[in-house]
Structures are given as C-alpha cells and as structure tokens.
C-alpha cells in the first residue's frame, strides 16, 4: 500500500515539475516575443525617420527660406512615424506585464 502511495506521490511531484517548466517556458517565450515585437517595431520607424529627416535637411539647405514649412511638416512626419514604434512598445508592455 505504501509503495502505491509513494508512486502516486512521485507522479504528483513530477507533474508539478512539468507544470513549473511549462510556466517558465511560457514566460520565456512571452518575454522573447515581447522583446522581438519592440525591437522589430523600432527598426521600421528608424529607417523612416532617417529618410524623412535626410530629405528635409536637404530641402532646408537648398531653400532656407522655406525652412519653416519644411520643419513643420518634418516634425509632424517624425511624430507620425514614431506612432508605429509606440504601437510596438504598447504591444511589448501588454505582452510583458499583463
């Protein structure tokens, strides 16, 4: 009888270990997924802002008299592009902390 009890206890302990491992694997995959979402979401806007600002600086250097208009549209463009990175960041915090 005690052998059966011992076997049952061993099986329960093993099941607990498997459950803990599964939880750890889940949290690791959630963390890496969140990190990838954040990192990948920052690459595109980085390229976009680089291109946008490069063209705007060229335009301002060529025509300084229109620098005001160029700077205004550049600022709005930067902020719009940055919204993509913000969306990635929000996905990151929702995956990581919720």
């Amino acid at each position: 009888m005690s052998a059966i009890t011992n076997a049952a206890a061993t099986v329960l302990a093993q099941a607990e270990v498997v459950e803990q491992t599964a939880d750890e694997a889940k949290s690791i995959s959630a963390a890496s997924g969140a990190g990838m979402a954040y990192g990948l979401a920052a690459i595109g806007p980085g390229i976009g802002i680089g291109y946008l600002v490069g063209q705007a600086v060229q335009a301002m250097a060529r025509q300084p008299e229109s620098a005001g208009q160029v700077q205004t549209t550049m600022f709005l463009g930067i902020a719009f592009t940055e919204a993509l990175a913000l969306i990635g960041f929000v996905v990151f915090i929702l995956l990581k902390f919720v």
Partner: protein
Amino acid sequence: MSTQADPMNTRIEGPSPAMAVAVDMAKRSLWLLPVIVVLSAAFWGVNGVASTLYALAIVVINFLLAGWLLAVTGRISAALMGAAALFGFLLRLGLIFLAVFAVKDASWVEFVPLGITLILTHLVLLFWEMRHVSASFAFPGVNPGVTPNPYLPDN
C-alpha cells in the same frame, strides 16, 4: 532655382516651428483631458484614470522634448538637427520605456488604459495638429492664430 546645399553650415534661424507645433499639441491635450478621464473612469475606475493621466503626460512631454531638441540643434546646424531627430527618436523611446518601467509595480497602474492612451492620444493630437497646419498652409491669411504661441513669429 536651388542654391548649393550645405547642411553642415545651414542654420535654421528665427522662431522654431517644431517647438510651436509641440506647444500647440500640448495645449490641445488639455481639450482631450476631460474626455479621456471620463472614458477611463467608466471602464477602469480610479486606477484607470491615474494610468491614463500618466500616459497623457508621457505623450505631451515626448512631443515637447522632440520639439525642443529640434529647436536647439537647428540653431546650430541643419545636419545636427537631422542627427538630433534620429538619436532623439531612440532617446525618447528609451525614456518612454523607463517611464513605464518605473511604475510597472505601482498599485495604481493599469496597463491596458495606459497603452491605449499612449497610442490614441498620440495619434489624435497629431491628426488634429495636421489639420490645423494644413489649413494654415492652404489659407495663410485665414489663420487666426487662435492660441497664443511664443514660438511663432509675430504677424
């Protein structure tokens, strides 16, 4: 006809339009304040309101910091302004991350309203400002300058 392009030596003189746009958006955020407070209170209660206000503060400070960086570096050279825009993007993303990370264990934080507010207020303020800017470009004579802004030139 274009002049020779030299971004290294071109300085952006005069009042900064980027800072003017940022200040304008900060003022418009005050109009959004009651709406988002009521909505977050209805769905998430007091904690939701606190998280929403925190997210709105992050968005407004982010805009003001971006405008200030462009204004300061533009007075030195256009090329430096380009560099500030790019590295400022990384810097500001890092600051937003730190701002959220600093409060992640706080009892009042609700991440869903915080995230929704971060995205929605950013986009709403941008679209609102874009409409204003495009209208003032299209009809400069009609632009009434409804909100006094120290960063805009005197008309």
